[in-house]
């Protein structure tokens, strides 16, 4: 029982680490030329020198911009507890001007123990913000505005950005605006009057290098030897982990997985899955866990899986095949018939077709091959609707909403290659369909 508890505790620890970005990004921030150090330097200098500043943090989604920023802010709050107040906005929530000013006032009030009125108008709120900026400047207190999803603030009239940056032009104010965005051209979205008030400092967040990745994996997955978890278990666990990390197959999996998206968060999701597959009986991570996680996280709804597979090394493919994860298209035979008919119509370069033309094709195929089974018009229509629901096909335009389904022009949403692979991997696919697909007949 004691052993089981230990294992569970270890698993819990790993899972909470994976869900906690500030833990994950800690080791990447200690070198002097890391983004962490640069950002910390910029902010702390503007705090100590009492000046205004603005920065953009740019990088793909999941590259840890916010996490690094939080680390920096946490450290600075410890360092200068009375000199900083942080206001956080997100473009997803506050892209509306009214909403943004309201939220700024709300957070300012909460920060300075003032009474916040929900009824305050847009004008009141913006004046309050400017007054607060001035007051804080006089008290030598820096307000740090964090604007997540910065590009969304650049929609519309950009009034929030303008009034923020304009207020910062005066000598009395003391504020830092930090924009966080995954659009690399975020500063190009700004209006001229806003852009001219913005300092064009940018920090780019790049995916981790191979060495960093290795370090990161070790940092996340190894257990601490000096904690409540029993020492012997932790040592044994870490030894096994080292074996896995050194394994060539493991490296191969990580490299293929990171091919599609090299950001840290992408890695975290993979690790989370692998860790949750950990065998509670033995209590150690194994290579199998990572393999299973890899095969499960690769999606195959429209057979992207097959596309990915081409770039994979052979052993992974064999592994996937043995797992039976290449079930391919999840359609009934009749739906496959319809897909093939549509495919044939597309090959014939018929510029547009609808259900009626598909039925014509289906009937002609049936007649020429004397297929025994026959499905009535309305059954096929229903199968057609199933396909629509699965989004394997769709209508070509939104016009003609009041037209019946059978007359609206449709198109395939999967490529012929995908369809072919899907048919091949279909368990009991009629041979005739494959032939029809290849245009042999």
């Amino acid at each position, binding site marked *: 029982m004691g052993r*089981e508890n230990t294992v*569970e505790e270890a*698993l*819990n620890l790993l*899972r*909470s680490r994976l*869900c*906690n970005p500030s833990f994950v990004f800690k080791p990447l921030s200690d070198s002097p030329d890391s983004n962490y150090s640069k950002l910390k330097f910029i902010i702390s200098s503007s705090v100590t020198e009492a000046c205004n500043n603005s920065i953009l943090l740019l990088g793909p*989604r999941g590259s840890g911009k916010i996490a690094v920023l939080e680390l920096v802010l946490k450290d600075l709050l410890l360092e200068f507890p009375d000199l900083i107040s942080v206001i956080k906005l*997100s473009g*997803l*929530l*506050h892209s509306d001007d009214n*909403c943004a000013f309201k*939220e700024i006032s709300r957070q300012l009030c909460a920060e300075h123990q003032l009474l916040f009125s929900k009824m305050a108008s847009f004008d009141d709120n913006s004046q309050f913000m400017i007054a607060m900026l001035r007051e804080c400047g006089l008290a030598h207190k820096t307000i740090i505005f964090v604007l997540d999803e910065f590009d969304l603030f650049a929609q519309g009239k950009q009034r929030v950005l303008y009034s923020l940056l304009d207020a910062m032009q005066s000598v009395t104010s003391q504020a830092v605006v930090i924009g966080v965005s*995954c659009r690399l051209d975020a500063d190009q979205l700004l209006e001229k009057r806003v852009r001219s008030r913005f300092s064009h400092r940018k920090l780019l967040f790049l995916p981790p290098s191979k060495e960093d990745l290795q370090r990161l994996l070790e940092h996340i997955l190894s257990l601490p030897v000096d904690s409540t978890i029993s020492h012997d278990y932790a040592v044994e666990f870490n030894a096994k982990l080292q074996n896995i990390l050194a394994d060539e197959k493991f490296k191969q999996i990580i490299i293929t997985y990171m091919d599609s998206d090299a950001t840290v*968060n992408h890695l*975290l*999701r993979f690790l*989370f*899955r692998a860790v*949750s*597959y950990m*065998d*509670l*009986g033995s209590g150690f991570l194994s290579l199998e866990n990572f393999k299973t996680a890899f095969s*499960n*996280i690769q*999606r195959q*709804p*429209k057979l*992207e899986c097959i596309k990915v597979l081409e770039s994979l090394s052979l052993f992974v493919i064999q592994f996937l095949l043995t797992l039976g994860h290449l*079930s391919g298209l*999840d359609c*009934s*035979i*009749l739906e496959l018939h319809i897909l093939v008919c549509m495919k044939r119509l597309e090959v014939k370069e018929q510029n547009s*077709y*609808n259900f*009626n*033309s598909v039925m*014509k094709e289906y009937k002609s195929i049936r007649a020429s091959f004397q297929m025994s*089974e026959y*499905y*009535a018009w*309305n*059954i096929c229509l*229903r*199968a057609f*609707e*199933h396909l629509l*629901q*699965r*989004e394997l096909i769709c209508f070509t335009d939104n016009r003609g909403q*009041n*037209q*019946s389904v*059978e*007359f609206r*022009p449709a198109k395939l949403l999967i490529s012929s290659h995908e369809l072919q692979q899907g048919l091949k991997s279909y368990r009991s696919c009629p041979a005739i369909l494959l032939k029809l697909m290849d245009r042999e007949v």
Partner: protein
Amino acid sequence: MYIYLGLFKILPAPAKPASAEPIRPIQSFTVGVRRGGRQRFGHTEGGRCGDRRPFCTPTRNRTAPMGKEESPQVTRRTTRSSSSATVATKTCDPHPLTIKDLVFGEDPISLNDLLSKFPGRRIQILELVRLLGASNSPMLPLFIYGGTSSGKTSIVLQMFRHLNRPFVYSSCRTCYSPRILFESVLNQLLLHRKDAANVYSSAKRCERPSDFVNFLREALSNVINNFKGNSGKLGTKKLVGQADGNMVYLIFDNLELIREWDKSLTILPFLFNLYDILKMPEVGIIFVSNTSPDTYYSNMGYMEPIPVYFPDYTEDDLRQIFMKNQANRKLYSSFLDVVLRSFCRITRRMDELSTAFLPLFQKYCEPLHDLGVVPNEEMKRRLFSHLQPQIAPSLNEVFKVSSQSSPAAESNKETKKKSSRRKLGVCAEIDELDFHMSTSAKYLLISAFLASRNPATLDASLFDSMGGIDSRKRKRKSSQKSLEKKENAEQELLMKGPGTFPLERLLAIFQCLTSVAEGSIDEEEQGDEGLGVQGGDGGLMSDVLLQLSSLCNANFIVKGGSCPLEGSTRYRSTVCEDMALKVARSLKFPLSKYLYRR
């Protein structure tokens, strides 16, 4: 007529098919969501836990991740009668909601029961259990997807019954706008119940995502602190009905429907980023969707949740599901031998198959006097030969619920959406008309059909001589060129569908048709004076307009947009030719004479 099945969750047990329960009004649904709403999703298993052997303690194998959580079961079992009594009283006498109401509200079930409840879903259930993890471990957002009626919602809900953890379930089908969705989540978290005392209002009024996040954060931290406080106070002893752990899970079902909302472009990225925005490790978020994650891509990205795929049931899975809860398993198994394979070629959706199999099984059992009999080979053959003629036609009726089946089906027709009605209501290939329609409505239907199919330029020649198309005329121009033209026109008809027409044309054709019909009646019955054709067009017209609007409501005729030149509304007939011919036959009207064949 067809019933659109996708709207309803149909229970998998074929013995009790088509939960013919009409959709409840929204308000009562959200009010009763805790007790009533949830239990509906359980797979008819309400009474089943009582049938279990009393002490079949789940095998506590070491690999099962939930091994530890099953330990409080013995204590729970002894008090089951008392807890079920409170459940019964709750439904009639609403008590103030407590924090305990965030769990499923029935006795937790063991993992083995969960697995046996859902045949063919073993892999997915085990995977979900592992991803959800032990009771206090945080979780990244999950995205559960799979085809319709593959058990996603039921499994997730029963999973939480098994885990006995607090969760908030809101379906985007009943919560059809951002505001209702937000308020439903908050109401559940704030333990608020809409009732007459508070005029069925929500706990918080919240329309914007920003307000929602503030309220949600507050409510969640309240709930979580509450749990932490409880577990601290009670120590190791656990109360009955007490939730495990201090995680709270938010479940968003039917996520695909959000894409059709007005504000979908902001709501979807917001929901997908909700976990990052909240930054609360005690919150787990689960999305349940019909369609795969690819269909959610927009130009605004988001962190993808962890995907969990529920594939369609295979034939073997379907057999196992159908075999569940069967009174006479041998008999039903021999029935499935006959029908399952051929039906699986058309569809593997549980809901559709179960409706199709119900009448077939009744047919199958017809020759039997005693339904408890175990069929031998000879009897199987006999039953098969009895059923065989039925299979082929019913294959083509998989999706049809015969109209005299049940009053519930009738009421379903009222509730189903207009768009789906348009899709299905039109092209019924019924052997004879199985609905009643007044004679003038029939004429109106036919004239609408003619107006849609025939070119307007030919109206004069068709109806002038009161005799239809002159066949000699058509034969004259069958040259090579006209043949080509004919083919093109046919193609065009297939592509474009029936044409539109203004009201005036419809009425003109209608009058021509009725006058012809009147004429023929007059010829037959000389003595009978005219039935009031000349009695005044005015009376006729108002009646016809009424009929027209009722035809429009029945979707036999669709009102289209107005013509930009004339400014009048244009109509289009959606009736297929077979149907029109059938109607004409019932009137003994020579429709084909008036139909222009290209």
